[in-house]
């Protein structure tokens, strides 16, 4: 629940900026599904249910300095770090101009060096040691940057999670690990993935700080990340944050979640949707009104329409480019 002492709570502009990004992420995601179901794009993997924690966390970072290593659901993180709506649709359509991979990778394999969004792959959890590596490098160079890496709770059972967090613990690295616990790894429910009560308790085994937050509560997430960020910059080392919410969509456009969970369960979880909750909170605070909200919605709709059109019309990379960039031009010296 929102703690009345949080400073952010009274910062109307920031709260509205957060809301805008959350809403944008949700609306982009919804459009992706429409495009997928109508046959325009072959694949979608969603952020729905996790936008709130993603945006809230991102706002607690320094977007001019920090490095982010997002996983495939982190549309919110990359929006905040500067990827444009057009660029997001370009990657969904796999067009040559896509800054993430030039259409080489599947959608949601984010990358954009100029915004310090680090390229990711499909095998889960490999980004966790990378994040430790960025933090190690920043520390070696006295660069006051933090690395922020996310993963699903299912992915926290990979060996790379253990090895990456332990390395960060031993070397007291400025890195924030955020587990987005949406209670499923595809069809496997939480209790078949782990037997522990809290993923965040794993922090103790690495000698780092661990904290669990309600991922549907923007301000709670923001404060946890903010504190972790300060600790990182103060040389106090890494933090493991577990943010709990729920995956509101099927795993991806290839999945049928009704084979392993019930409609009732999903409906019930939908009623806790953090985006709705945040919106209501803004209404209660008087920061958001129907008019502001409607304007926002139509502005976003326009932005998405434009981006969709642009991406749809953009060309694929030429087939002759298939052999490019296996190695750099400069070989050895």
């Amino acid at each position, binding site marked *: 629940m929102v703690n009345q002492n949080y400073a952010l709570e009274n910062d109307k502009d920031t709260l509205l900026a957060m809301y805008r990004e959350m809403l944008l992420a949700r609306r982009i995601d919804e459009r992706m599904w429409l495009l997928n179901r109508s046959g325009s794009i*072959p*694949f979608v993997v969603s952020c729905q249910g996790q936008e709130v924690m993603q945006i809230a966390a991102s706002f607690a970072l320094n977007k001019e300095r920090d490095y982010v290593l997002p996983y495939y659901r982190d549309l919110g993180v990359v929006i905040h770090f500067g990827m444009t709506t057009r660029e997001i649709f370009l990657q969904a359509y*796999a*067009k*040559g101009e896509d800054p993430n*991979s030039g*259409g*080489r*990778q*599947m959608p949601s*394999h984010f990358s954009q060096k100029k915004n310090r969004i680090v390229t990711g*792959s*499909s*095998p*889960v959890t490999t980004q966790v040691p990378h994040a430790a590596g960025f933090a190690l490098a920043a520390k070696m160079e006295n660069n006051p940057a933090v690395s922020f890496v996310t993963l699903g709770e*299912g*992915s926290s*059972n*990979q*060996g*790379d999670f253990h090895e990456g967090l332990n390395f960060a613990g031993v070397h007291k690295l400025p890195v924030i690990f955020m587990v987005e616990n949406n209670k499923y*790894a*595809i*069809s*496997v429910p939480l209790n*078949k*993935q*782990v037997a522990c009560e809290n993923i965040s308790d794993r922090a103790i085994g690495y000698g780092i700080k661990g904290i669990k937050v309600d991922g549907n509560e923007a301000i709670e997430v923001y404060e946890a990340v903010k504190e972790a960020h300060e600790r990182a910059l103060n040389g106090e080392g890494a933090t493991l944050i577990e943010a709990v919410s729920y995956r509101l969509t099927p795993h991806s456009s*290839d*999945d049928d979640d009704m*084979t*392993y969970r019930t409609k009732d369960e999903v409906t019930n979880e939908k009623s806790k949707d953090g985006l709705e909750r945040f919106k209501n909170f803004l209404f209660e605070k008087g920061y958001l009104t129907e008019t502001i909200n409607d304007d926002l919605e139509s502005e976003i709709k326009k932005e998405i329409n434009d981006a969709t059109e642009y991406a749809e019309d953009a060309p*694929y*990379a030429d*087939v002759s*480019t*298939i*052999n490019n960039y*296996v190695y750099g031009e400069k070989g050895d010296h």
Partner: protein
Amino acid sequence: MAVLTYIQAVNQALKEEMEQNEKVFVLGEDVGKRGGVFLATSGLYDQFGEKRVIDTPLAESAIAGVGIGAAMYGMRPVAEMQFADFIMPAVNQIISEAARIRYRSNNDWNCPITIRAPYGGGVHGALYHSQSIEAIFANQPGLKIVMPSSPYDVKGLLKAAIRDDDPVLFLEHKRAYRLLKEEVPEEDYTVPIGKANTVREGDDVTVITYGLCVHFTKQAAEKLEQEGINTEILDLRTVYPLDQQTIIDAASKTGKVLLVTEDNKEGSIIGEVSAIISEHCLFDLDAPIHRLAGPEVPAMPYAPPLEKEFMINAEKIEQAIRDLAEF
């Protein structure tokens, strides 16, 4: 006989082996209620229960490693890697452990595990859901690698793999899952591991290949027959260790050899096939050994035109056979 798809043949082989031997069990990600993301284990959870159809945590090294432990105990685990691309975290368990257990214990212990994994492209899977990974493992004595090309072979080879007393990597082409259908006997049968299969006789050009490329080669051969070019097709079936004698015989027969793989060329298993031929029947050759393979890039891109450019297809094979025939 019922007509089964390639994936249905996987499913049927698993079901029958589990019925016949209660030491057989499956483990992997989403193999339970979900029946696997490709439905390879569909229905097994209901029939055999969660004790024999085990949804594991998302951790491939444990899937392999726990399976290896159970296999040493005396069980017959069938471990699923959700995509072959995700077998990489399990390489240590497969190479350092499964492949070496019999040898290092001087035959005291053995490790009868089967590891299934869908490989291959042409499914909009991009870099990490399209790879051919057989070459990574095709240098490890103690391990067998099977790559079936048809529903009939799938059923017979998967049963043979499960009954084999040594570790078998069983690689299924995911594009073949629903593309390939044929009549598959209801009764129990196995197809021998370690033997290549002549799927077509011909005396102009020999094509040696495996997996989905066998299908494309058959299409090409049928077309070329109308031009009077007769193609011999050898399906390797087991890509490690290779069936050397059958390869040598097939190459010698026509003297013109085309090797085809969907993998990128350098370091792929058809290099070994070529080496075997030039070691044993170089002077029977009437043309250089030609290799048709993917480009030398890490894996195939997602964008449809680029994916298509990467993939082997019947047209590319047809052209390569024609070139050789005319050599």
